[in-house]
């Protein structure tokens, strides 16, 4: 490994001592790979980032689809939504061009902008990631419904391009949504294995946007609650249960095409190879959950806590038998359990990519403000996420322990071409 490092070092001129840290970081990533088989090999390449000119730990920014969706899920998240402060569509286009340039650089672990010798100027890059590896940073950009139309106004001449399915998430029973944690004209999802790398990316994109867009809300996630690759272990959420066992895995390309990627023939055409992201800030009533008995907890989720197996099963990946009933004649997996309600309709499969979050303490209640920042990607949110979430909102036993405090839906356009920019298919078709 160390010889390889040295050779790599010499191969790339103009890149500084930061390489050393990159390689050190990649060693850690290599150790983290679990599982086996073909999927693992694919994932390992992605994790080590062999795709981007050989920069270890870098995930290519350009491509057919945006990165950060099928990328084996990184450990950390900073998600941000922005509101545009301009009414000039060419300024929006300029911003997306600048964001694309910066995102491509940061994905390779490079600073944004240029280094200047002038000590009277602030540096272009804010600097806190200079010595860090790319940490598999991905930046995923999206467009909210209000980009296309706001209060009935076609503010940028894009209304005709608006996907019908980008209609927003209708209000659900039990919603406690806060406007300052919801919606937005644009979004950026930054995922990385190093929280500082993810934060640095959002900070610099926010800075670049100043004068054109302002941050509307932001959420930090400290640990992934899903696995998006068979090579990854299923993580646990803050309720202590394994989450995302039945997630669509990136290796199943036919399922990805069926449920995640917008296909040829889907409207509008500019969204082909894109997808839609639903984000929900789901606060857990931690104190209430913590005083529920193990039995209550397992009946609520529909799985055993330690093994992750469905109730009645032994292994995490045992099929969920919705027909099985216990000695009392009642279904083994309760009718109002989270796992049963989530699985009732196979057409509603989604790619989950959520993160645990905490924002410290809620001073009003004196309780922990923590939970799940739910993220899902789907081909048609009105046919997948919305009916699924409605069924959960109406019936889920879990509702006793959670509050939905933020909500947003964004169209994720296809990946940018190397000499193009993210969102080009929308803005050039307008």
């Amino acid at each position, binding site marked *: 490994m160390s010889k390889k490092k040295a050779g790599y070092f010499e191969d790339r001129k103009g890149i500084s001592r930061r390489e050393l840290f990159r390689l050190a970081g990649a060693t850690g990533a290599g150790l983290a790979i679990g599982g086996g088989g073909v999927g693992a090999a694919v994932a390992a390449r992605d994790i080590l980032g062999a795709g981007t000119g050989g920069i270890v730990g870098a995930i290519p920014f350009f491509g057919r689809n945006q990165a950060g969706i099928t990328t084996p899920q990184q450990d950390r998240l900073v998600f941000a939504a922005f509101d545009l*402060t301009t009414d000039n569509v060419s300024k929006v286009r300029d911003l997306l061009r600048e964001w694309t340039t910066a995102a491509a650089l940061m994905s390779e672990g490079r600073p944004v902008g240029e280094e200047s010798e*002038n000590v*009277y100027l602030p540096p272009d890059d804010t600097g806190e990631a200079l010595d860090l590896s790319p940490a598999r940073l991905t930046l995923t950009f999206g467009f909210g419904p209000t980009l296309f139309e706001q209060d009935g106004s076609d503010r940028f001449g894009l209304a005709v391009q608006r996907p019908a399915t980008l209609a927003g998430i209708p209000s659900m029973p039990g919603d406690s949504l806060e406007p300052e944690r919801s919606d937005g004209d644009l979004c950026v999802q930054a995922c990385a294995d190093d929280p500082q790398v993810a934060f640095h990316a959002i900070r610099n994109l926010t*800075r670049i946007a*100043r004068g054109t867009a302002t941050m509307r809300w932001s959420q930090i996630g400290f640990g992934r609650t899903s696995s998006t690759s068979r090579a990854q272990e299923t993580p646990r959420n803050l309720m202590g249960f394994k989450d995302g066992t039945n997630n669509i895995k990136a290796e199943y390309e036919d399922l990805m095409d069926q449920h995640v990627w917008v296909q040829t023939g889907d409207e509008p055409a500019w969204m082909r190879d894109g997808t839609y992201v639903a984000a929900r800030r789901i606060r857990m009533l931690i104190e209430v959950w913590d005083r529920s008995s193990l039995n209550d907890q397992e009946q609520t989720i529909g799985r055993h806590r330690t093994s992750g197996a469905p109730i009645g099963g032994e292994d995490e990946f045992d099929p969920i038998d919705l027909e099985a009933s216990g000695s009392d004649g009642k279904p083994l997996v309760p009718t109002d359990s989270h796992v049963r309600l989530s699985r009732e309709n196979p057409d509603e499969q989604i790619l989950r990519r959520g993160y645990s979050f905490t924002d410290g303490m809620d001073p009003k209640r004196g309780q922990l403000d923590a939970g799940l920042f739910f993220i899902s990607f789907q081909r048609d949110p009105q046919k997948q996420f919305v009916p699924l979430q409605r069924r959960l909102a109406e019936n889920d036993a879990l509702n006793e322990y959670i509050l939905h405090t933020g909500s947003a839906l964004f169209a994720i356009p296809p990946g940018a071409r190397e000499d193009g920019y993210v969102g080009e298919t929308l803005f050039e078709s307008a």
Partner: protein
Amino acid sequence: MRAALSLATIFVLTLGAAGCGQGPEAEKEDTGTTEETSGSASSGSASASASQAAVPEADIQSTPELEAAVDEYRAYVVGETDQLVEETALFTGAVLAGNVEEAKETYAPARVHWERIEPIAATLGDLDPNIDAREGDVPDDEWRGFHRIEQALWVENTTEDQEEYARQLQADIEQLQAEAQNLELQPADLVTGSIELLNEVSAGKITGEEERYSRTDLFDIQANVEGSEAAFEALRPSLEQSDPELVAEIEERFGAVYETLEPYREGDGWVPYTDVTEEQRRQISQSIDALGEPLSRVGQALEA
């Protein structure tokens, strides 16, 4: 109060770096002496180290434009101290006359002239804590100045026992005016000053902590922005040759800030800051941030 400390730090950093090419280590040592707390003990040492650090000649290629910029801005600062003396006299006169209403009316208009030049004024003599300390910035028995009287006027609705504070304030302001006559500025002071005035708004004023009794924060905010613009205007001829686009962008964003503030005008002044909602405060804050990015690039004018 806080301005003195942070500006001092910037002086140390910029002049240190420009003056003798000290490395980052040396800079770190310098800033280490200016404790970043807002107590009175540190404010004295911060001012002292600022003036010491300002001694080395800044290593900037002087041009006729830059010299003119320094002269123009220096005249602006002196002019503001002159008006500050006049307007403060109306305020302290009302306090001495026991006229609460007139004192309240003349308070914010006097402070405008302080706020327009705050980062520079705060380095003149050691007058800043005497003039502008807020409750808790200094030990209670040393607290005096504008905000001491502000509290009596708005909380107690009286001028009683404020006479001595009024006399001291007037004397301090007049001393400030005298110090301004000997003011020596470098081009870098204009660059840091214009940004520092915006930082005043972003870091403190926007939350409403500055004028916590009188709620006249919008007077201060507008004055900070105007002072920032004055420094930028002085530098404009140097910038216009090198980067006319930057000049246009900065102008546009100053305009956007004024436009954001405009709805809160009331008569000759401004609505009480308590009438400005959190969301509106956020809009003001973000318009200042949008201006700060291009404005922070005026340092280009100093590039040889």
